[in-house]
């Protein structure tokens, strides 16, 4: 069977081009270890700058009120269940110095406690004034960490003041986790995207395997032997599916190695991974059809690679523009890339214990897109490279 003969040949070639193979296989694990080094050790810690200028105040009963210092202690005390402090607190030399640190992203949030903080609070406590003490918060709202740190800091401040003034907050918020049994840290949330990165790398190896035959002219020998487009692309797809699955497995093992644990079904995860791999191969067919040489792949081909990487939310979260709604499910513009749906499916399986029934929309979308891209890729490739001109 000629598919098998060609599959064997292209597999051997891939093994011999070991540098490309190693980069493909190591790309995902490398990023897993990198992200683990940054985010994976425990829960995240937010860098808080507090400029405490509070002079304190003497209460009527003779006690000294140092509300600024006390609030600072409350922020320092707040900790995760593992005991690690939520905030790493430092004091800037001045407000401009603090703002500079925010701009450099050396800090996530700057809090300014004014000189009359305790004085105003004292007057409120002694019912001399209804004015409340002012706390100034500075931060970059483009920095998600600022928003999270602000939320924590506000919560602590409200709690402290309500206890001090014996006032009850007019709202009781009960927060419930949607994750399975365990609590998720930043790293856990990155893992699905990192796993997809391993699959995206197949774009290069698959396109390279195809374009190489065009670039070197060997495709004419294959055409003369009457190897069909279907046989040719099927053999390459099977080979790349093996490579992509291996890369996915290695990336997952790397995540497990640094302590990541899947909440869901591994067979389902690998099945979705294999489908995603095929979808990336389908995109690589289109890329290969449009290019003529390995040089073009390494220059022009970088564009679709980054498209997949960024718009699949593998690197960062993006605004979501709804493309259309199907039943209860929104499909976003990003979901035109099958890897975007893969990230969502992986997240649901690995972090939220989703089963096949919970993935109907993601899997449906992936299958549809894979079929469309594959059909278009085969048609375009045949038209441009495997047709009698």
């Amino acid at each position, binding site marked *: 069977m*000629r598919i098998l*003969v*060609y599959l064997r*040949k292209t597999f*051997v*070639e891939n093994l*011999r*081009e070991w540098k490309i193979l190693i980069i493909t296989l190591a790309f995902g694990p490398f990023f897993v270890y990198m992200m683990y080094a940054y985010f994976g050790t425990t829960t995240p810690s937010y860098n808080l700058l507090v400029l405490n200028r509070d002079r304190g105040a003497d209460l009527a009963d003779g006690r000294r009120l140092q509300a600024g210092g006390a609030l600072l202690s409350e922020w320092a005390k707040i900790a995760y269940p593992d005991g690690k402090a939520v905030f790493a607190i430092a004091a800037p030399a001045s407000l401009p110095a603090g703002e500079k640190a925010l701009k450099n992203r050396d800090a996530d949030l700057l809090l300014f406690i004014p000189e009359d903080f305790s004085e105003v609070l004292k007057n409120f406590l002694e019912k001399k004034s209804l004015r409340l003490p002012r706390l100034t918060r500075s931060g970059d709202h483009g920095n998600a960490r600022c928003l999270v740190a602000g939320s924590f800091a506000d919560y602590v401040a409200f709690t402290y003041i309500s206890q001090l003034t014996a006032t009850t907050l007019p709202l009781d918020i009960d927060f419930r986790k949607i994750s399975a049994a365990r609590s998720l840290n930043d790293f856990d949330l990155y893992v699905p995207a990192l796993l997809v990165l391993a699959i995206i790398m197949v774009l290069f190896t698959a396109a390279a395997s195809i374009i190489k035959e065009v670039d*070197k*002219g*060997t495709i*004419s*020998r*294959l*055409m*003369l*032997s*009457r*190897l069909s487009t279907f046989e040719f692309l099927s053999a390459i797809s099977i080979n790349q599916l093996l490579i992509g699955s291996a890369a996915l497995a290695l990336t997952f093992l790397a995540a497990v190695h640094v302590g990541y644990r899947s909440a869901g079904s591994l067979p389902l995860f690998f099945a979705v991974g294999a489908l995603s791999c095929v979808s990336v191969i389908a995109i690589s067919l289109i890329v290969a059809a449009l290019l003529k040489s390995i040089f073009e792949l390494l220059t022009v081909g970088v564009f679709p690679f980054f498209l997949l990487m960024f718009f699949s939310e593998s690197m960062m979260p993006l605004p979501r523009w709804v493309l259309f709604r199907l039943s209860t499910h929104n499909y976003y513009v990003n979901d035109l890339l099958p890897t975007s749906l893969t990230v969502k499916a992986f997240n649901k399986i690995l972090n939220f214990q989703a089963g096949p029934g919970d993935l109907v929309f993601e899997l449906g979308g992936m299958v549809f897109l894979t079929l469309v891209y594959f059909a278009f890729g085969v048609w375009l490739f045949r038209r441009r490279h495997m*047709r*009698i*001109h």
Partner: protein
Amino acid sequence: MILEVSHLSKAYGDVRAVDDLSFSVRSGEIFGFLGPNGAGKTTTIKMMCGLLRSDQGSVTIKGSALHEGGWKGSRRIGVCPQHIVIWEMMTCMEQLEFMGRMYDIEAKRARRKAGELLEVFGLAQKKNKLARTLSGGMQRRLNIVLALVHEPEILFLDEPQAGLDPQSRVLVRDYVKSLAGTMTVILTTHDMEEAEKLSDRVCIIDGGKLLVLDTVENIKNQLGQGDFFEIELAGNQGRELLALLQGSPERFRLQGQTLQLVSHDAVTILPQVLQAIKEHGLHLENLRIRKKNLEDVFISLTGRGLRQ
């Protein structure tokens, strides 16, 4: 006839690469397909083996017509392209076996045939080496072997000797000669000497049009019987001598600065020419008598050399 080309035409924009070309190739013959660069040889070869669609005309192999997407007999042909087309990351043996199997030859037979060919082409020692590690000459030989491993009935060799060292040229020439009668070989080249030595018949094309098609001897005899007699004089004296010899019954002609004559009787004519040179004080720089070749035929047909 194993292959028939009928009114074949191909244009690239305004340029007619092949223009109403018709000829036939006999089974088992070595068919020289000659022409200068840009004559349309490679374009014609591509159309003959089904890699390029013609604008007009047809190609039939053993009576089967070429059709879109391939040709029924395409698996009976072998093509050695002008440029090296090999799989660099496969060993010589692997790629030959692979190519054989792509033509549905069983692995054992493909390996045996590959081994034989590697031996003939002096690559047996390199059979397990990656193709990219071979020298340029060896890669060229492998390029030829790849066209042969599936034992085709028709072999297209497009400039097979380009880039080969003298030793390899002899090796390839001997092999092609040995194929005569067992395989139809269509050989494109602009090496006239090789074409003369190898070809049973020669087809010369220029500007995509057929100039002449016949056996080498018949084509050469179009220039007249006898040998080629060439006289080179200093400066523009060739023109002067031609004028002096106008009364001679022999037909002289000026090619560049060289005065040429084809004659059976050069020995008789030579003293007359030398006498004329001496009497008019002309300066003889070179004088030679040689056999006619296909280059001379091409020059006589087009007024320019094959390499121009």
